[in-house]
């Protein structure tokens, strides 16, 4: 029986039938219903399933019609109702499947027309009321697909007698059973020389040093091989090799891509995180969680933030985010496509699922609806890609979090006190204000046009903005004076743009990380807007080079918010303004000279700067009076309390500023420095709507965050407050993907690990375990490996050990005619595969053999290009870079990867394209490769360095050649090779010999 009926539903159905029976419905009707039920089971259900449901299912809905449920059948299709229960002649379905007017039946489109008895059964079934048992759903169970089935560790197959010698591990038992089934024999183990070269390239991506080779060959320990595997897995270079595989999949690069293709100077901490994670054998579940929601799930771990580099690793359209506002069509489109990249990256990487296909329509082959797709977009609705700070030291991270929490507590307490003040002095204030206004009118009669500094305009008051002066050298400061602007815009006048909250700091460096001194931290409630009365802050001998004014609450303008200041004066002990004419920097600035410009802040011009001494003094006096009244709004206790809280706030801020400087990583972020139209969501998720045909101009219903429906049997919790809680959305996805019961996750990673060890995966499409993808060659082995990984704490190294020590892995790679005849592609693993060095490994191996590979780990990437015109669209000119001047011959995993202008040598050798999620690299053979390796500047430099290394080798030319072969190939030259190469060396020199060694197939291929 192909259709399923839940037990509960069945009971319910029986109960209903029974109720009808006892309530005395005519026996005739009961008989009809009986007939309908029989027909449904015997004919209709199989007919629908075999002939209709392929197109008319809930996902594809050809003609808008699904025949999977009664509800869907009765709902009909785009042409309306298809079945009128009880009336076959009025049922459109009958018309569609019957020949009409000499024309053959229009349905089914595929295969023969329905037979007469089938047509008759259909008519009778409709006549009998189109009976359909409650809760019955026709069609295949969507989870009945190999990759969606629950993951259980299968039993290891029994070993045939003939294989007892060969089989070493459970892996071998699975492979041997499959080989037997196909009449194939496994290959014998490769010799130790081959094995050590294979293991070195596989696990470290480096050639084995000759002394290691010799020691391994001479090692009498029968477990020497196993010990070698352990040693290599413990090497820090293992992480470098395997991180590169991961970076392929998540399409990591160091520039944005698209137009302009600007650099991402802080992408590399994520790359380093991946290297560290693999070296530490981080449990895979944790690895997943950190990369999707580390900031939420592991807030005190630096990895929790750095790992989010994964979500940001792909391309980003600078112009459409920064230059185009989010309100415009192009702006919305870019942001939607940006989330699309995140959804596809996460789902293809962790779950080998091509859910991106459901952006424009329900997935045509896999059980994912458009709704499912946009529900995943909603998970990422609040994040963008930007630089975000983190503390590499977890203790510092924890401390910072505590202090920041304390700051907000104190801030809240201060607010409470301020709110409790009772301003009964309103009339006195009004009186003073009137007197001030008189003087101001006199002063601004001669207002100079250089108004001051003016920030970019914001739509909310809570943006923090700063402006600072560079005194040029460290100076002794005795006081600081702020002067407000005057602008009649919106009848604001005096104190235009003066922030409602502000602080003043001094420091030794421009980034305010060294010896930061907090001079004032003020809110309007304590200190009203001074208008144009210069505000003097006394400082007790502070030494600093930079003075910064930060607006913590912006001033109101019309329907928007700004920060403006006419003058910033810094006075020394002699009362001299040492800031006069000094350079000004600001977070942002509305440069509209003559009125508004940063430099106006230190030009000595402010409202009243030309006024008489008398006028100025009078103004300041009135202002003091006003301040006194203003402050009288609070009782002595309140003021004491405020001072106390202020003091503590200053101390906490001071502690914060003394923490070690934070580092940056380019990662998923909700709060970051805005840049033009690119503004942070601050954690408020954008509204995500289902887009009809993926068209940004056709939004339909709003979609809430969720995991795909068909996979909801994997536990998944989204708290009720997830509506506004973006972190909870990502945490849900992270927990769900890393759940032990997830059928895709563990299979996906086990398949990838296998692929990198053998050069071919068990499932030929590592990013697609759906119906368009390949089927596993060894499904049971895959499940066994996946369960083994999951049940051993998610240890990838455990999997490496199992694989590397297996007999399958150790096999020789040589050809065997009888096996080739059966299985040319080696799908059944009757030998190991001969593998070509990947682009990075080839480059590293050349430099290693030449003796100039720099093995320092981590940090910013090396750049093997010259940047021209960096200010607009940087030109990354590889051909202008001199490989002789290598800044460092570091491993290729540390290469600064430019998205739009691929590195020519690496590209021609099939390195991963960071515009795509690369699950399997191509392996091409082209004349351009030959040119790159034969004539390329780097290979020629390597050949020359290699020759220099040989020349320094003590011994005669024969020994020199022997060493060269050992370095490059882990073997000695044969007699004929010795003859040819020495002859060639004599004629053309060692450089040319080395050039050939680095171009040989034996160098390029493992085995």
């Amino acid at each position, binding site marked *: 029986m192909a259709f399923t009926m839940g037990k509960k539903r069945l009971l319910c159905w029986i109960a209903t039938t029974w109720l009808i029976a006892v309530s005395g419905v005519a026996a005739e009707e009961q008989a009809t219903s009986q007939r309908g039920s029989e027909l449904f089971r015997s004919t209709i259900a199989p007919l629908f399933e075999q002939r209709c449901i392929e197109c008319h299912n809930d996902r594809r809905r050809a003609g808008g019609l699904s025949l999977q449920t009664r509800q869907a059948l009765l709902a009909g299709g785009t042409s309306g109702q298809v079945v009128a229960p009880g009336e076959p002649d009025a049922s459109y379905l009958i018309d569609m499947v019957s020949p009409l007017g000499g024309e053959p039946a229009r349905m089914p489109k595929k295969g023969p027309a329905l037979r007469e008895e089938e047509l008759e059964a259909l008519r009778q079934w409709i006549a009998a009321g189109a009976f359909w048992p409650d809760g019955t759903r026709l069609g295949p169970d969507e989870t009945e697909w190999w990759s969606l089935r629950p993951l259980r560790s299968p039993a290891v197959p029994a070993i045939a007698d003939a294989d007892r010698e060969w089989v070493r591990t459970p892996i071998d038992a699975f492979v041997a059973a499959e080989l037997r089934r196909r009449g194939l024999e496994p290959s014998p183990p490769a010799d130790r020389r081959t094995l050590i070269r294979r293991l070195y390239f596989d696990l470290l991506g480096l050639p084995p040093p000759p002394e290691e080779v010799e020691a391994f060959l001479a090692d009498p320990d029968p477990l020497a091989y196993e010990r070698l595997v352990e040693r290599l897995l413990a090497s820090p270079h293992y992480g470098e090799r395997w991180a590169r595989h991961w970076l392929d999949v998540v399409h990591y690069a160091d520039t944005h*891509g*698209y*137009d*302009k*293709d600007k650099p991402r100077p802080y992408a590399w901490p994520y790359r380093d995180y991946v290297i560290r994670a693999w070296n530490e054998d981080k449990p895979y579940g944790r690895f997943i969680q950190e990369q999707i929601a580390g900031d939420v799930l592991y807030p005190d771990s630096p990895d929790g933030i750095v790992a989010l580099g994964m979500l940001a690793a792909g*391309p980003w*359209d600078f*112009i*459409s985010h920064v230059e*185009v506002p989010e309100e415009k069509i*192009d702006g919305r*489109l870019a942001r939607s*496509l940006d989330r699309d990249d995140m959804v*596809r990256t996460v789902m293809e990487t962790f779950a080998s699922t*091509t859910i*991106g296909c459901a952006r424009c329509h329900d997935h045509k082959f896999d059980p994912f609806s458009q709704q499912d797709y946009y529900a995943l977009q909603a998970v990422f609705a609040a994040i963008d890609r930007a630089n975000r700070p983190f503390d590499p030291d977890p203790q510092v991270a924890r401390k910072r979090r505590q202090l920041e929490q304390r700051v907000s507590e104190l801030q809240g307490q201060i607010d409470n006190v301020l709110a409790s003040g009772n301003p009964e002095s309103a009339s006195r204030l009004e009186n003073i204000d009137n007197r001030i206004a008189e003087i101001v009118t006199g002063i601004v009669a001669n207002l100079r046009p250089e108004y001051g500094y003016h920030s970019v305009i914001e739509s909310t008051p809570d943006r923090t903005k700063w402006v600072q002066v560079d005194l040029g050298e460290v100076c002794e400061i005795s006081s600081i004076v702020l002067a407000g602007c005057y602008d009649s815009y919106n009848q604001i006048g005096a104190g235009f743009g003066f922030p409602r909250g502000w602080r003043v700091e001094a420091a030794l460096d421009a980034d305010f990380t060294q010896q930061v001194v907090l001079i004032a931290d003020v809110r309007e409630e304590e200190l009203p807007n001074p208008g144009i009365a210069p505000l003097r802050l006394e400082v007790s001998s502070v030494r600093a080079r930079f003075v910064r004014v930060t607006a913590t609450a912006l001033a109101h303008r019309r329907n928007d918010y700004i920060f403006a200041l006419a003058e910033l004066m810094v006075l020394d002990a002699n009362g001299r303004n040492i800031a006069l004419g000094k350079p000004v920097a600001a977070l942002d600035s509305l440069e509209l000279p003559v009125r508004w410009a940063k430099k106006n802040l230190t030009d000595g011009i402010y409202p009243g700067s030309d006024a008489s001494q008398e006028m100025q003094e009078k103004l300041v006096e009135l202002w003091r009076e006003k301040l006194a009244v203003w402050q009288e709004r609070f009782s002595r206790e309140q003021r004491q309390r405020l001072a106390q809280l202020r003091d503590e706030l200053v101390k906490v801020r001071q502690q914060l500023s003394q923490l070690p400087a934070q580092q940056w990583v380019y990662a998923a972020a909700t709060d970051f420095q805005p840049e033009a139209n690119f503004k942070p969501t601050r954690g408020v998720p954008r509204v995500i709507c289902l887009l009809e045909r993926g068209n940004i101009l056709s939004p339909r219903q709003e979609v809430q965050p969720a995991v795909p429906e068909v996979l909801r049997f994997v536990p998944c919790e989204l708290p009720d407050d997830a509506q506004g809680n973006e972190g909870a959305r990502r945490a849900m996805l992270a927990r769900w993907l890393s759940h032990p019961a997830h059928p895709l996750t563990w299979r996906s990673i086990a398949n990838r690990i296998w692929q990198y060890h053998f050069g071919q995966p068990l499932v030929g*499409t590592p*990013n697609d375990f*759906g119906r*368009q993808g390949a089927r596993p060659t060894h499904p049971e082995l895959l499940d066994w490996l996946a369960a083994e990984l999951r049940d051993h704490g998610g240890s990838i190294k455990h999997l490496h050990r199992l694989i590397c020590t297996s007999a399958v892995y150790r096999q020789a790679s*040589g*050809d065997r005619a009888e096996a*080739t005849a059966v299985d040319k592609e080696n799908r059944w693993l009757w030998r190991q595969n001969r593998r070509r060095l990947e682009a990075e490994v080839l480059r590293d191996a050349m430099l290693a053999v030449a003796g100039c590979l720099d093995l320092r780990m981590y940090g910013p990437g090396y750049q093997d290009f010259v940047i021209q015109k960096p200010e*607009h*669209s940087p*030109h990354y000119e590889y*051909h202008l870079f001199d490989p002789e001047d290598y800044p460092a011959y570091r491993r290729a995993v540390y290469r600064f990867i430019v*998205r*739009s202008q*691929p590195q020519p040598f690496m*590209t021609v050798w099939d390195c991963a394209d960071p*515009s*795509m*999620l690369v699950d399997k690299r*191509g*392996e091409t*053979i*082209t*004349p*351009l490769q*030959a*040119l790159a390796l*034969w*004539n*390329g*500047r780097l290979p*020629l430099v390597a050949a*020359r360095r290699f020759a220099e290394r040989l020349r320094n080798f003590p011994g005669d030319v024969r020994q020199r050649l022997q060493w060269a072969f050992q370095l490059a190939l882990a073997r000695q030259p044969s007699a*004929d*090779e010795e003859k040819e190469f020495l002859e*060639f060396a004599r*004629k*053309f*020199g060692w450089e*040319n010999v080395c*050039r*050939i060694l680095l171009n*040989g*197939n034996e160098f*390029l291929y493992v085995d």
Partner: protein
Amino acid sequence: MSTDLRIRSANTGISRREFLSRAGGGFGAAALAVILLEDEACGKPVVEGLHHPARARRVVQLFMAGGASHVDLFDYKPELERHHGEPSDFGEPVEAFQNGLGPWLKSPFPFHRYGQCGKWLSEPVAALGSVVDEIAFIHNMVGKTGVHSSATYLQTTGFVTPGFPGAGCWVSYALGSMNENLPAFVVLPDHRGYASNGPKNWDAAFLPARHQGTALFPNREEPIEDLLPPGGSFVTPESDAAGRELLRWWNERHRRDRQADSRLEARIRSYELAARMQLAAPEALDISREPDYIRRMYGVDRLGATFPDEINPEEEAAYFGLKCLVARRLLERGVRFVQVWSGNDNGFPRRNWDSHEDIQRDHGPLAWGMARGAAALILDLKQRGLLDDTLVIWTTEFGRMPSSQGSKGRDHNPYCFTTWLCGGGVRGGISYGPSDQWGFKPLDRDHPTEVHDIHATMLHLLGIDHTRLTVRHGGIDRRLTDVHGRVLHEILS
């Protein structure tokens, strides 16, 4: 900065010609004698036999980076002259990329009629008047975005995001090369630098890497990366030739007990093909043997001239003409797809078609140079009988608004622009799909032409059904035309 137009000259060490003549006696000549088997390694066509008889065998695409203005070149709008300076009114809200919704702006260039067909062309592109009866103009092109990067991707790959193969890659993938000594898909970038997206516009993406466009820089010392060892290295012509011999011997020796692995043999042969490319590529680029009248025709008769710093028509003509001439030489030697770029990135000073500030200043020289080279190319192909089976496509990423930006510039117009085709199976002397009176949108808004239609038509002329040329990637059978594309039978002869 003055620019020095050099074709190729010897730098340090020995000259290229000398290198080749000395090496040619050794390995190069031997390589030419090698008979090659068709297989995966050297570009065997994937489409076995074409879907239907082909009208064209090769394609040359001229790409104007930055957004060439249709209303200032090919799509004459008398209404703009009539209403010049009046506030623009589109009759609907319009979203401009920047702020280019100022008054209607007439073209700074006068228009005249050319050819039998009487096509209106502006003065800078008057040179195309001599071949206008060969050309089919499509004036109702619409794009999907006004952002350079995405719009350029759309025109080059059919998708607005990176990660898809260029049209030339698909053609290479489908049809392979007609001359295995040269790449099937060659790109001639603007000599000043790449346009938006750089080499990603001709990236093979998920197609095998050999179908990626090979960038040639005819005016660089080294027109193809690593074609020859750099001057001043330890490599001499003799060590190079003998080295290849030894390498081949050594690789053959290695292959002896690994016969079943065809990759090892393909690797050996890749060195032989490389050697042949070393001869074939410089020969294809060597325009010194072109007769004077041909060089004059392409405007490349002033080799070694220096030009002023400001953008100027002579310089534009010389560089674009050189690329057109090289394109012709490549096409006649069997290169399948040549892409010629005019204009670099969108930086300053403008050296591309993104005339936000001043149409006359930038479009004037660029169009004059482009039209001269393009007309020469079409005439030259025709006189050699190559135009019959060579498809010429003129493309840009979007057009420009009929309203003004500032007083002399125009903003992006992705809602309407012009593409033109000629040669191989195209009906000449026609203008298809008119735009509205302003050149703002297609006249018939329900039936615009999209790049997918251009791509479908191109593949159709090459004998390929665009719906049947697919490659599975990421769970989808990908096509150049995505799920779109209509063959424009109306413009076919």
